[in-house]
């Protein structure tokens, strides 16, 4: 395994090693740093992945990081996807510019991912009903919402910590 899910992902993608003042700063909030990392593990290597495979989770995360042009996280999730066994279908999911055709379930999931990532304010009950209509169950919907919410949190933390690192 090249991408360890045990190494702190945010330190890793921002190149914060133990000599970095921002590394030391993050350590002052060791508890939230720890739970940020365990939240990542719960999102990407859960003990029971249900209907979202490990590879699918990495592909969706790469897509979201790409939507926000978060180059560091996009590279991380693309690498994670490769490691978990990428396919042309998963590559398409990971590419924020692609809307795969002919698969209504997948298209509805990706439309939801794109909307809630970029314009959560526009989400309505109809979006959740659309997910039920293509066959997602309660748990699938909460899993998907959790993945979207976590990756967006991570994008914001990375963007903010990067400002501290560079300014």
């Amino acid at each position, binding site marked *: 395994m090249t991408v360890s899910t045990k190494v702190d992902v945010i330190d890793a993608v921002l190149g914060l090693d133990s000599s970095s*003042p*921002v590394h030391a*700063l*993050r350590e*002052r*909030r060791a*508890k*939230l740093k720890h*739970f*940020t990392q*365990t*939240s990542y*593990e*719960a*999102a990407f290597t*859960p*003990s*029971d992945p249900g209907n979202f495979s490990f590879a699918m989770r990495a592909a969706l995360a790469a897509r979201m990081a790409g939507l*926000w*042009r*978060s180059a560091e996280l996009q590279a991380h999730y693309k690498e994670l996807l490769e490691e978990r066994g990428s396919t042309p279908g998963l590559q398409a999911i990971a590419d924020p510019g692609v809307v795969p055709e002919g698969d209504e379930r997948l298209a509805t999931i990706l439309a939801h991912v794109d909307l*809630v990532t970029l314009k*959560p*304010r526009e*989400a309505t*009950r109809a*979006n*959740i*009903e659309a997910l039920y209509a293509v066959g997602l169950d*309660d*748990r699938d*919907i*909460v*899993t998907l*919402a*959790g993945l*979207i*919410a*976590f990756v*967006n*949190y*991570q*994008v*914001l*933390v*990375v*963007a*903010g*910590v990067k*400002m*501290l690192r560079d*300014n």
Partner: protein
Amino acid sequence: MSEAVHEFTLEPLDWQPYVRPVKLDEATTEQLEALKVTPSNTKVSNYVLVLANEAEMLAERTPLFNDIMYSEGGLSRGGREIGALAASFVNRCIYCASVHANRYIQLEKRPEVVDEIYRRGLDADLPDFEQALFNFGADLTAHPDNVGVYQFYHLREIGLDDLEILDLIHSIAIFGWANRLMHTLGEPHLKA
């Protein structure tokens, strides 16, 4: 059933889910652990019961949220609420905004700050300290791919140190998370 609320308000709200909450009497051991249900604490909100559909993530999220909002030292509790409010205004999470606006008032006893945000939204004209926090929060939430360096320096100008800035970043980011759950998985209604 009361009507759903689609405009920002400071009235007490109930959150009603679009997704079925886990039923406590049918919950698995893992779900009960994530819900922190104990014999003396059986009151669990619908929101948390919805999230318990994915117990493994919920079990990490709860302590993360609490540490971000309530840890000792660093940015004031009120300052963190401003971060939460800025995110919730950009993302239009009416329920989150109402809860954290009321909490800010409770903590800081300065309802005029919240009144101005509720009157003018993202154009709110606030005292310098709150303005800097609010603007950075709105900016980071709306476009994390292009955060204004000006907004960042404004935080330094009002005297925030690095730990306080880190706390602010997390309070904004955790509402990037919370808003995307609360605003998309259900909607607020006026409390009956």
